[in-house]
């Protein structure tokens, strides 16, 4: 049974250990029709597209974690639309592990109400599987970033996902030296967009929820011994994942992370979904910091479903020509 989730901060290991398929919900190629009855058109198309997907497809339930304002309120809309929903309050200010462990304890109860069964052994198995998948994705992206695979693995059983990534690692070839572009933004579930960058002569690295932010973690250095310590492990794992603009970090962690990623890049592209407030609020300052490093910077706005690939191509090719 599919349990849908939208944010990379969702503890998919818990969902998986309860016997459900954690399934990342994205906007699809389908036009947004049914969702328009529930949500305004000035909400981002990832939110509207995900709602459309939820209304059209078969899901057992949905899990939200507190991230951007739109997704927070989307929880209520999903509920209003008759969906089974759980909202986990991930702390916006990163650091309060104990609070989040309690949230995860409550979430286990919800999973049980939904017909799932969570125990320490099963959770440890899921933790190991997802860690394996994340490490393999890191390996694959070090050779050649493969966004189609990174997106697909978020919608299939983790064991199959590991097999798929293994297969991709076997056939992947190390990318040749080319001008490098860092793509930063929230989500872009359309692999063709990344191909446009490659076709324009760029090698690609990213700071995206549909790319490295799905698998970049600093894992806690302790081995869980019981269910509670496993929850602590999850809490620390997610609090130490690649930073996201919807969270508040100590110092300037989010900007420093992006600036560090950009160091070996020739250009940075903000690939932003229209109306994505957290990213757009950061954009002017972050752009100025990147330009201060001598990077060429471009902004490409997306609206899902993406139809104007050629317009994206012109911007990407123009950026390549500028370099």
């Amino acid at each position, binding site marked *: 049974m599919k349990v849908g989730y939208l944010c990379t901060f969702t503890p998919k290991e818990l969902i998986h250990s309860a016997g459900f398929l954690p399934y990342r919900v994205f906007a699809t190629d389908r036009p947004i029709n049914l969702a328009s009855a529930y949500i305004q058109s000035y909400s981002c198309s990832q939110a509207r597209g995900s709602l459309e997907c939820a209304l059209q497809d078969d899901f057992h339930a949905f899990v939200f974690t507190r991230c951007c304002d739109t997704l927070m309120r989307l929880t209520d809309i999903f509920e209003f639309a008759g969906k089974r929903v759980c909202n986990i309050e991930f702390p916006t200010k990163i650091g309060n592990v104990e609070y989040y462990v309690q949230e995860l304890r409550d979430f286990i109860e919800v999973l049980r109400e939904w017909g799932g069964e969570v125990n320490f052994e099963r959770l440890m198995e899921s933790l190991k599987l997802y860690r394996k998948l994340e490490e393999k994705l890191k390996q694959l992206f070090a050779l050649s970033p493969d966004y189609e695979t990174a997106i697909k693995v978020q919608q299939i059983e983790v064991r199959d996902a590991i097999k798929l990534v293994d297969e991709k690692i076997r056939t992947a070839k190390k990318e040749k030296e080319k001008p490098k572009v860092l793509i930063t933004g929230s989500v872009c579930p359309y692999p063709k967009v990344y191909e446009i960058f490659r076709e324009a002569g760029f090698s690609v690295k990213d700071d995206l929820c549909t790319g490295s932010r799905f698998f970049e973690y600093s894992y806690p250095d302790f081995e869980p011994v019981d269910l509670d310590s496993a929850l602590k492990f999850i809490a620390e794992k997610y609090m130490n994942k690649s930073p996201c603009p919807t969270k508040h970090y100590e110092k300037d962690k989010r900007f420093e992370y992006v600036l560090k990623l950009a160091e070996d890049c020739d250009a940075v592209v903000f690939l932003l979904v229209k109306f994505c407030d957290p990213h757009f609020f950061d954009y002017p300052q972050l752009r100025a910091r990147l330009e201060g490093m001598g990077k060429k910077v471009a902004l490409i*706005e997306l609206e899902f479903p993406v139809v*104007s690939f*050629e*317009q994206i*191509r*012109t*911007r990407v090719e*123009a950026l390549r*020509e*500028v370099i």
Partner: protein
Amino acid sequence: MITVGIDIGSITAKCVVLEDTRILGYKISRVKPNLEVTAKEILAETLSFVGLKREDVGRIVATGYGRNMVDFADKKITEISCHAAGACFLISNAGTVIDIGGQDSKVIAVENGKVLDFVMNDKCAAGTGRFIEVMAAALNLRIEDVGSLAVKATKKLKISSTCTVFAETEVVSYISSGEKVENIVAGVCDAIAGRIIAMANRVGIRREVVLTGGVAKNLGVKRAIEERLGFPVIVPEEPQIAGALGAAVLGQKA
């Protein structure tokens, strides 16, 4: 060397033949649904106009939104680089190129012919030639008359909607309230100028500002932009060929 630049835009195709630094001739035609046929026809027409054959041409460079459909081109370069190169070929001290085409508009910051930064609007008719086309139709005017009428205005009526569809409603409302046509079109031109300057501020405006694209021929829009900038802008003799010319110029270097 003789080079040819072909710019396949959304509404018009432009072709320029360049020998070293001398423009031998150019043609502008309406785009047909088959972009490859459009490109072939305008190339044949322009070459015949300047008395050359295909084999006399050293290099063909395609640009514009239909560039990837011009299979016979030796190179394809985006309209950003080409408009910058074309505008700087015509006005060597250009600092900003504002190109307002039929379906898109772009502002390019340039220095010595090189692109520093750019911003494009190609998703929405606001701030493009299409905006004028729709308003001209609502006012029962020929598009080429809009600019000359706008400069006769005694006041500039405010068009507050950015969206072309809603702006058209405002225009219709002004007509029914008896406002003079020239005052309405002055408002239309100013609405485009407002949209363009907002875009231009994102890349920064540096003199000299060169206005290219079909809409540059519209005196009303030119004046509205100048009023908002507070200084004059330069419109080349044939602003519509800047992209094709730039493609031919870059063909010389390729």
